[in-house]
C-alpha cells in the first residue's frame, strides 16, 4: 500500500511526474516585466531619495484627514501593525491557489514565488543598509506632518526607502495574480490599500511603497529561473511524499511570512542586546 496521501487534491504518481515535466517547461521569468520594473526602479529611486515637490504635495494631501476622525485613524493604525488583517489574508490567498485543483501541477512555482516574495523584504532590508539615510515622513521636519491619533512609532532606523512591508504584501498579491488572475486582482488591490495605510500613518512615502512593489515583481519573476524552479519542485515533492512533515513546517513558514518574521527578529535583537 503506497504511503502517499491520496486526497482528492493529489493526482496519481505517474500523472504527477508527467505534469511536473510539463510544468518545468511551461513557466519562465517574464523578461519584459523585469526590464520595465528595473527601469522604473532606477528612475524612481533618486526621485524618492531627494524628496520632490510632487511627493511632499501628495503626502500633505493624504495627511489632511489626520486627527479629524478618531475612527479613521484607529483603522489606519490597525492596518499598519496588525497582521491578522494584512499579511494573514494574503498568505491565505496563497493557500487557496495552492489547493486549487487546476494549480496542482504548478505548486512548485507557487512555492518558490512565495518564498521570493518574502526574500524581497530581506533584499529591501539589505538595500536600506547601503542607501543613504532617509527619514520617514513622521520624522521629516520639512514635511511637518500631523501625526494621526494614537500613533506611537518605534523607528529603530532612519531608512524609509524601500518599504519592506509593501514588498512582501504587494509581492504576495503579485504571486496570487500570476497564477490566478481574478483572485490576484483582489489580492493586489488589497495589498496596495494596506500598504497605503502605512503611508497615511507616516511610516513611508508613497514612492517607498511603489519601490517595494516594483522590487518584489523583479525578485518573484527571477525566482522562475530554472535553478530556483527546481528547488520549488523538490520541496513540493515532499508535500506528496511526506505531507505530515511538509505541512506543519509550511504552516510555521506561512505564519512567519504573514508576520514578516517580526518575532524572530525581535528575538535575535533581544539576544544580541544581552551579548
Amino acid at each position, binding site marked *: 500500500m503506497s*504511503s*502517499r*496521501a*491520496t*486526497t*482528492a*487534491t493529489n493526482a496519481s504518481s505517474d500523472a504527477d511526474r508527467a505534469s511536473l515535466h510539463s510544468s518545468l517547461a511551461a513557466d519562465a521569468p517574464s523578461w519584459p516585466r523585469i526590464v520595465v520594473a528595473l527601469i522604473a526602479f532606477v528612475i524612481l529611486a533618486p526621485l524618492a531619495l531627494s524628496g520632490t515637490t510632487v511627493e511632499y504635495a501628495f503626502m500633505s494631501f493624504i495627511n489632511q484627514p489626520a486627527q479629524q476622525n*478618531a*475612527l479613521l485613524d*484607529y483603522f489606519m493604525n*490597525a492596518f499598519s501593525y*496588525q*497582521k*491578522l*488583517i494584512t499579511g*494573514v*489574508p494574503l*498568505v*491565505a*490567498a496563497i*493557500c*487557496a*491557489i*495552492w*489547493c*486549487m*485543483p487546476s494549480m496542482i501541477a504548478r505548486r512548485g512555482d507557487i512555492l518558490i514565488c512565495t518564498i521570493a516574495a518574502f526574500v524581497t523584504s530581506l533584499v529591501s532590508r539589505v538595500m536600506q543598509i547601503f542607501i543613504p539615510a532617509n527619514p520617514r515622513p513622521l520624522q521629516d521636519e520639512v514635511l511637518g506632518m500631523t501625526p494621526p491619533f494614537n500613533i506611537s512609532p518605534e523607528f529603530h532606523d532612519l531608512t524609509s526607502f524601500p518599504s519592506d512591508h509593501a514588498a512582501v504584501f504587494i509581492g504576495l498579491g503579485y504571486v496570487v495574480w500570476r497564477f490566478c488572475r481574478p483572485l490576484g486582482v483582489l489580492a493586489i488591490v488589497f495589498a496596495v490599500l494596506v500598504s497605503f495605510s502605512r503611508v497615511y500613518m507616516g511610516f513611508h512615502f508613497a514612492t517607498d511603497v511603489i519601490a517595494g512593489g516594483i522590487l518584489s515583481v523583479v525578485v518573484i519573476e527571477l525566482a522562475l529561473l530554472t535553478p530556483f524552479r527546481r528547488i520549488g519542485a523538490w520541496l513540493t515533492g515532499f508535500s506528496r511524499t511526506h*505531507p*505530515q*512533515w*511538509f*505541512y*506543519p*513546517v*509550511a*504552516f*510555521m513558514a*506561512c*505564519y*512567519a511570512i*504573514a*508576520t514578516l518574521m517580526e*518575532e*524572530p527578529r*525581535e*528575538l535575535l535583537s*533581544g*539576544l544580541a542586546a*544581552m551579548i
Partner: protein
Amino acid sequence: MSSTPLQHVGHQSGRSALRESVVALIALLLVITTTLITFIMPLGMEEQAMLAINQMARESPLFDYIMHVLSYQNLISGVGLVAGLWALWFMPSLMPRRAELLTCSVAAFCSAALSRIMQQLTPPHPRPLQDEALNMTPPAGVDAQTLHDFSSFPSDHGAVYIGLAWVIWRMHRKLGMAAIAFAVLLCFTRIYLGFHFITDIIGGGALAILTVQIALLTPFQRIGGWFAGFSQTAPHWFYPLAFIACYGIATLVEELRQLASGLLRFIL
C-alpha cells in the same frame, strides 16, 4: 473518498466510551477543585511552591529572557502546537479521524474562550505578580503591572496549550508526548513570570480537557465531519479559511480582541 459523516465515533466500543467519560469526570472534578482552592481555600503548599519557583528570578538574565520570550512570542509557542495539528491532519493513517481532529481542536480553542468568560464572571483574583501577600520578585524584563485582566483564574493560555496537547496525544502517542512536554514548558513560563498560579493553569487545562471530551459527543462530531468534508470537495476554500483560523488559535485571537476592544471604546 466519500464525504459522509465519518463513522469512527461508531467504532467506539462501550468500554472506550466509558473511558472517555471517566476522563471527562476527572477533568470536571479538577475544575471544581481548583475553583474552590482559588476562591475559598488557598493552599499553603501552592504559595510555598510559587515562592520556591520565584527563587530563580533575576538570577540569570538569559533564563529570564527565554522564559519571557516563550510566554509571548507566538511563533515558538502556539504556532508550534498548531503545527502539530497539521502534522496529524496530513498523516495518512489518521485520515479517517479528520472530523475528530477538527472538532476537538475547535473545542480546545473554545475552552480558552470559556476561560476568558469565567475570568470575567468570577470575583477578581489578582495575579501572582500583583499579589501583595505573595510578594514575588518579578523576573527581569517583567513589569508587575502588565496584565490588566480582572482575574487570573482560569488561565486561557493554559487551556489552549494543554487542550491542544491533549488533542494531539489522543490521536498520536509519540507526537502527543512531545506536545504535552512542550505545553507544560509553556505553562511553566507563565507561572515563573507571575502571570498565573499553578492552580490557574491546572484549572484551565482541566477545563480544556473537559471541553474536548464533550466535543466527542456525536452531534459535535457530525458538525466536524461536515466541515471536514469541505477539505475534500472545496479545498481551495477550506484551507485558506483553516489557515486564518489556525492563526487565530495559535495567537489566541490577540489581534482580534485588541481590535474589538478598541472599537468598543469608540462605541461606548
